[in-house]
């Protein structure tokens, strides 16, 4: 194994641990920390998938915006966002068992049966390529996303105005 591979496996490991922590952590802030770890790991995986730009966007959008937003909300809510109301032991066991069975089934059925390495080409996804795709073939989704964001902004502002009047 090379250094690169060790780092790669570490990244995979970190991603999975983070995902587990995001689900299982008792404190909601710790769960958020798990989510951030996962995102960090995924950004690393994007680098291994030859798209640095995407990795950076992952950091910028998920870590920089979304998780900070969530953390902000947790802090605004203060005592409400506590750890109350998780499932009891029986529920947990059932859930874990069910998830494990289904995932193992899918893993063996679809993933392991197709272990042969897929074709590898040394293409580096540059910012230019993505931009070209967006402007040539994906114009409509791109515009729709802009529209969605605008609607989301307006909606959030409306909700904030409503929230101000609730008391």
């Amino acid at each position, binding site marked *: 194994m090379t250094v690169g591979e060790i780092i790669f496996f570490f990244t995979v490991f970190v991603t999975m641990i983070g995902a587990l922590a995001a689900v299982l952590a008792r404190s909601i802030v710790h769960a958020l920390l798990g989510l951030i770890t996962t995102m960090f790991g995924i950004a690393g995986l994007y680098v291994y998938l030859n798209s640095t730009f995407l990795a950076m966007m992952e950091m910028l959008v998920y870590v920089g915006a979304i998780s900070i*937003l969530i953390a902000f909300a947790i802090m605004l809510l203060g005592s409400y966002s506590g750890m109350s109301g998780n499932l009891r032991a029986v529920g947990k066991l059932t859930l874990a068992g069910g998830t494990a069975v289904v995932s193992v089934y899918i893993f063996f059925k679809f993933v392991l049966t197709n272990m042969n*390495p897929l074709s590898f080409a040394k293409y580096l996804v540059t910012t230019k390529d*993505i931009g070209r795709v967006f402007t040539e073939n994906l114009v409509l989704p791109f515009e729709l996303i802009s529209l969605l964001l605008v609607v989301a902004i307006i909606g959030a502002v409306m909700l904030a105005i409503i929230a101000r009047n609730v008391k």
Partner: protein
Amino acid sequence: MSDMFYNNGNIYFFVALFMLFCGIAGLVYRRTLIGMLISMELILNGAGLNLVAINRFISPENPYGAAFTLIIMGIAAAESSLALAIIILISKRYHHIESGDLKELKF
């Protein structure tokens, strides 16, 4: 070069799958709305990873997967901001944010 582990698509798929299941489990397991939101983000992240990996191994010359992942990010940003606004509203109205007790839809 081609036998390097990080050129094996299955690993990426596995991670994406794992995140999907973690997310689903979290959606069921968490009862506070923020916890559920975090699980949602896990699922979206997994989907993004899956898209990029497939794109990279199946047709690396057209970065449609990367583009769609960017779109997912946009959706996630919009979704989480709206969700958080709603959660804050709910907390002000009901003084808690547990999903089980939210029975009225009308405000």
